[in-house]
Structures are given as structure tokens and as C-alpha cells.
């Protein structure tokens, strides 16, 4: 009897502590002065997203977003430190204060807008529909009854689900979800998926590596979206500073040079 009492009080104490601490995170403040004092901003990136952020043969971080972030950091006079994160935990990492920016081909979506503040967009990206070169699928409507692969928790998934009628007509009533976009490509080549929906930026990079003639890109797509930098909603100062610096990168031609370097546009 006695030990049961002890346990009950321990459990209720635990619950009390948890409920008491929930409030703490909502009362966040603008952290710009803290960041300045610390002298560095922690940028959360996923190093499995070529060509935006990935590792070269020396295991060094590289990519369009890494270069872009570095250019912005010079304009801000703040050091950026890159922290690899698991992509599915990005908003949690941000709001827990482990990272200050999400900068890795981060598309603006309605759902994400409720959780994070977005900078001005810096890159446009389409959700392409890709099939094998000899596929009979020609339009979006041909996807009915077919197995379609997307990366889980990606904006591609959101874009497909946004067209609910079409999504319901897919095989199994929804797209197949994979860990990474490369998994989607491999599933397509294995013949299990008949089509995949992926970010154009990544898809062009992958197709160039694996052989452009293997694939067919449909004229239809799942809409255009924009890449932007994500940060905590409380960080209004950081947001305006980043926007200024990115605008400066456009004006002095830094971004045009990056576009040419990574996309050959």
C-alpha cells in the first residue's frame, strides 16, 4: 500500500513538472542581441539534399544553400555555424533553440507558416512528375491507379495531397512515402513506382548523375513553390537583417553567380 502511494505521488509530480514547463517556450523573445553577443548563428541543414546541401569527397559541406548562407553571413558580419539535423525534426530543433535558421531548400507552405517565420523567397522550384523514359504516362490524369512515390514530410507530398481528388485515385489511395528523394528514384527504376513527384532542383541534379535519357519529365507538374529561410517567429530583427542581406546578394550579382555555378542557368 505504502509503495503505491509513493508511486502515485511521483507520477503526479512528473505530470505537474511537464505541464508547468509547457508555458516556457511560448514566451520567446527576439534573440538577435543574444546571437550578436554569441557571435554566431547556428544554421540547421540536412546534408542529404544535393545540390542544396551535401558533402563533397573531402567530407566538407557544400552546395547552393551553403554558398548562399556564407555570402549572407559575410554581409551580416555574423559567423554561421552549420549543424546537420534530421529533416523530420527541423521545426522542433528550431523552436527548441538548438538551431537559429532552417536553410536547406526549405519550401514555403501554409502548414509551415504556422510554425516558423519565412524570409523573402530566394529560389523558385517546381514539383516535377517524373517517369521512366518508356512510360505510357503522359499527363497528370494518367496517374490514376498508378503507384506514385514522394519523399516523406516533403513539400512534394503536400503538393500531391493538396489535389485530394487525384491523390485518392492513386494506387492505395495515397502516394508511397520514402525517406529520401533518391529512394524514390530507385523505386521508380525498380519498377515498383510508375511515377515520382520531386523538387525540380534536386531532380535535375539526380537525373544528370544517373543519365538524362532514362527519364521523362511530364509537362504537367504539381505547382510552383518557393525556397526561403526559416526562423523562429519571435526573431523579427534577424528576419529583417536576413532579408536585407539577401536583397544585397541579388543586387551585387552574388546570387546570379551562384545560380550559374550550381544550375548553369
Amino acid at each position, binding site marked *: 500500500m505504502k509503495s503505491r502511494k509513493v*508511486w502515485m505521488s511521483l507520477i503526479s509530480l512528473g505530470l505537474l513538472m511537464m505541464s508547468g514547463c509547457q508555458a516556457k517556450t511560448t514566451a520567446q523573445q527576439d534573440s538577435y542581441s543574444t546571437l550578436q553577443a554569441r557571435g554566431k548563428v547556428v544554421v540547421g541543414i540536412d546534408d542529404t539534399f*544535393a545540390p542544396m546541401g551535401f558533402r563533397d569527397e573531402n567530407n566538407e559541406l557544400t552546395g547552393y544553400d551553403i554558398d548562399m548562407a556564407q555570402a549572407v553571413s559575410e554581409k551580416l558580419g555574423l559567423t554561421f555555424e552549420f549543424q546537420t539535423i534530421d529533416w523530420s*525534426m527541423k521545426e522542433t530543433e528550431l523552436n527548441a533553440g538548438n538551431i537559429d535558421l532552417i536553410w536547406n531548400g526549405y519550401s514555403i507552405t501554409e502548414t509551415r507558416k504556422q510554425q516558423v517565420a519565412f524570409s523573402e523567397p530566394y529560389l523558385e522550384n517546381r514539383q516535377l512528375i517524373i517517369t521512366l523514359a518508356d512510360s505510357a504516362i503522359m499527363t497528370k490524369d494518367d496517374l490514376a491507379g498508378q503507384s506514385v512515390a514522394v519523399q516523406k514530410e516533403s513539400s512534394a507530398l503536400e503538393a500531391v495531397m493538396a489535389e485530394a481528388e487525384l491523390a485518392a485515385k492513386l494506387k492505395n489511395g495515397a502516394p508511397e512515402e520514402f525517406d529520401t528523394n533518391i529512394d524514390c528514384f530507385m523505386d521508380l527504376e525498380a519498377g515498383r513506382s510508375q511515377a515520382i513527384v520531386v523538387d525540380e532542383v534536386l531532380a535535375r541534379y539526380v537525373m544528370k548523375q544517373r543519365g538524362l535519357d532514362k527519364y521523362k519529365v511530364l509537362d504537367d507538374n504539381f505547382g510552383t513553390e518557393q525556397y526561403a529561410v526559416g526562423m523562429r517567429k519571435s526573431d523579427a530583427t534577424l528576419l529583417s537583417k536576413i532579408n536585407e542581406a539577401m536583397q544585397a546578394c541579388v543586387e551585387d550579382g552574388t546570387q546570379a553567380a551562384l545560380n550559374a555555378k550550381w544550375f548553369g542557368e
Partner: protein
Amino acid sequence: MIRQILPSLLAGAGVTLQVFALTLLLSLPLACLLQAFQQFSGRLLKPLFRGYITLMRGTPLLLQLMFIFFGMPYLGLTFSREASILIAFTLNYTAYFIEILRGALGAVDPGQAEAGKMLGFSRRTIYFRIQLPQALRNAMPAIGNEVLNLVKDTSLIYVLGASELLKAGRSAVNTYATALPFVVVGLLYLAMCGGFSWILSRIEKRISYY
């Protein structure tokens, strides 16, 4: 191609080995100590031990990692990535080792402890000098299983953004758009586990002195 991907994979294997070695060095001695406490503890502490072991064995290690890194700050305790990984792995593996030891200690002839008592040894001496060495020897195959599991469980730390071997492999697969890195990753895990099983079998032979 292999030459291009190998540096990042080896760096990943380094992280994997680090987590493996630190966890093993912390959890096995800790389990020996805690098992002693459990054996000698009164009625009040026992449910605490059982609760801890139930919690550790009853929830996924991945969830424990996330709870310690993302959840504990809500309770006022903030750990670094590295610390969170070590705490979660050590707590989890200690629980399994305690259970293995409990079983192995039960298999040690009670006559051993009685003889020790007759000779006037303290409870501590009996546990550490007489019971534990015999129990560890009996437990070697089970401990070996856990050691190899630990090598592979380290792949879970990707969730805290750590670039261990499997994550490095995924990264390379993405960069070069081919699945070849996964084959290399598999071979590296196999080599590590092969090496550890060889060491374990040597230890087992060495301590089976009668």
C-alpha cells in the same frame, strides 16, 4: 567512386565506433554496480529499479533519444547532442546488461556465496570477487549479443543530426545518386561486427579457465 565516398563513410564509421566504445565502457561497469545495489537494496528501492528497467526495455531507444534531447529541456535539463546520445545509450544498455547479469548471477551456485560467508568475507567481497566474475563468464554469450546489437543501434543517432555511418551512407547516396555507398556501408558494419565477435570469442576462451 569508392575513393570519393570513402572519406565521409570512414568519418561516419569513426562516429559510430566512438558512440559504441563510450557506451560500452560506461554501461557494463554501471550495470555491475547497479546490479549490486539492486541485490542489496531494500523494499523501497526495488520498485525503482524495476521501473527503470521496464521503462528502458519497454520503449524504443529512438524515442528515448528524442525524449532526452528534445523533451528534457521542458523539464529544465538541457543536454548537448553528444551528451544526450551518451545518456540515452548508456541508460538503455545498462538496463539490458543488468537483466543479463541478474540471470547469470542466479545461475551461480548459492554454495559459493555461503562458503564466502562462512569464511567471513563481506557482502561486497562476495559479490565482486566471487559471484560477479562467475556470472560474467556465464553471461558472455548474451553480453556478446548486446555488444553486436549496440554496433548496429548506433545508427539511430541520425535523429539528433549526428553523421554516423548509415547517415553518411545516405548522404553519399544522395550526392552521387547511386546505391553503391549502401553496399560499402554494409561491408563496413560487417567488418566492425566481425572484428568484435572475434575479440569476444577470444575473451570467452581466455576466461573459461575451468
